[in-house]
C-alpha cells in the first residue's frame, strides 16, 4: 500500500517537472537508458552534472568579477557553452534557456545583462536540484 503511495507521488512529481518546463525530452532519453545493468543511471548522471556544474558556476562567477579594462566575453561564452551543453545532456530545460539568454548578452557585449541573467541561471540550477533530489528520494522509497 505504502509502495503505491510513493509510486504515485513519484509519478506526480515527475509529471510536474515536465509540465512546468523544468525538464525536457532528453531526461526521458536518460530514463530509457536505465536498466538492470545501470539501475541508478539517471540519478548518477544528474549527480555528475551537479558536481561538474558547480565548478563551471564558480568559473563564471570569477570571470564576471573581472575588473580589468578589457572584459573577456569570449571566455565567458566558452564557459557558458560548456555549462549549457551539460544542462542539455540531462534535459534541464529552464537552465538551458537561461544559458541561451546569457550567451545572447555575451554576444552583445552586455555585461549587466550577463550578470542579471546569471542570477537566473543559478536560481534555476538550485531549484531543479531541490526538485530532483525530492523526486529521487521518492523513487528510492518506491523500490
Amino acid at each position, binding site marked *: 500500500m505504502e509502495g503505491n503511495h510513493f509510486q504515485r507521488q513519484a509519478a506526480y512529481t515527475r509529471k510536474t517537472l515536465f509540465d512546468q518546463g523544468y525538464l525536457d525530452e*532528453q531526461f526521458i*532519453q*536518460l530514463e*530509457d*537508458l536505465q*536498466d538492470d*545493468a*545501470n539501475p541508478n*543511471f539517471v540519478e*548518477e*548522471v544528474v549527480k*555528475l*552534472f551537479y558536481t*561538474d556544474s558547480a565548478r563551471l558556476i564558480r568559473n563564471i562567477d570569477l570571470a564576471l568579477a573581472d575588473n580589468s579594462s578589457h572584459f573577456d566575453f569570449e571566455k565567458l561564452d*566558452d564557459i557558458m*557553452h*560548456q555549462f*549549457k*551543453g*551539460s544542462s*542539455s*545532456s*540531462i534535459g534541464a530545460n529552464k537552465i538551458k534557456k537561461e544559458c541561451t539568454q546569457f550567451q545572447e548578452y555575451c554576444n552583445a557585449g552586455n555585461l549587466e545583462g550577463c550578470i542579471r541573467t546569471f542570477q537566473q541561471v543559478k536560481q534555476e540550477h538550485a531549484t531543479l536540484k531541490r526538485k530532483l533530489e525530492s523526486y529521487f528520494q521518492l523513487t528510492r522509497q518506491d523500490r
Partner: protein
Amino acid sequence: MTSKNILTLGQKFSVLIVDDDKIIRRIHKVLLNKFGFESHTVENGKEAVDLYLSGKHFDLILMDMEMPVMDGPKATRELRAMGVNNMIVGVTSRGLDSEKQAFTEAGLDYCVEKPLTSETITSLLQELAKK
C-alpha cells in the same frame, strides 16, 4: 533495418568516444553499449591520436568538436594524415553551419548534434554494416 536486426548479423563494433565532458562520455557509453558496441572513452583529441599511435583501432570514432589539449578538427586531421580510414563522426553542440562545415572538412564522415539519440546510433550502425 532495426538496430536489433543489425546486431543479429553477428558483428560487434568498437567505438572510441572522444569528449572532454564526462557527462556526455557516460551517456554515450551507456547508449552505445545498449546497441552492442564495445566502447572506450578518452578526454581529448591527443589521447585519441595517442591510442592509434599505440596500435589500437576502432570501427567508429565519435569526436567532440571543442576540447582542451587537442580539439576535434585537429585530431581528425592528424588521424586521417596517419592513414586512419575508419568512420569518424563529429559530435557538436554548436549549431552554426559554418562551424560544422569546417569540422567536416577536417576529415569527418558525418557531423551530428549531441547528445546522440537512438535514431542517430541506428543510422550509424547501418552505415557501419555497409562497410
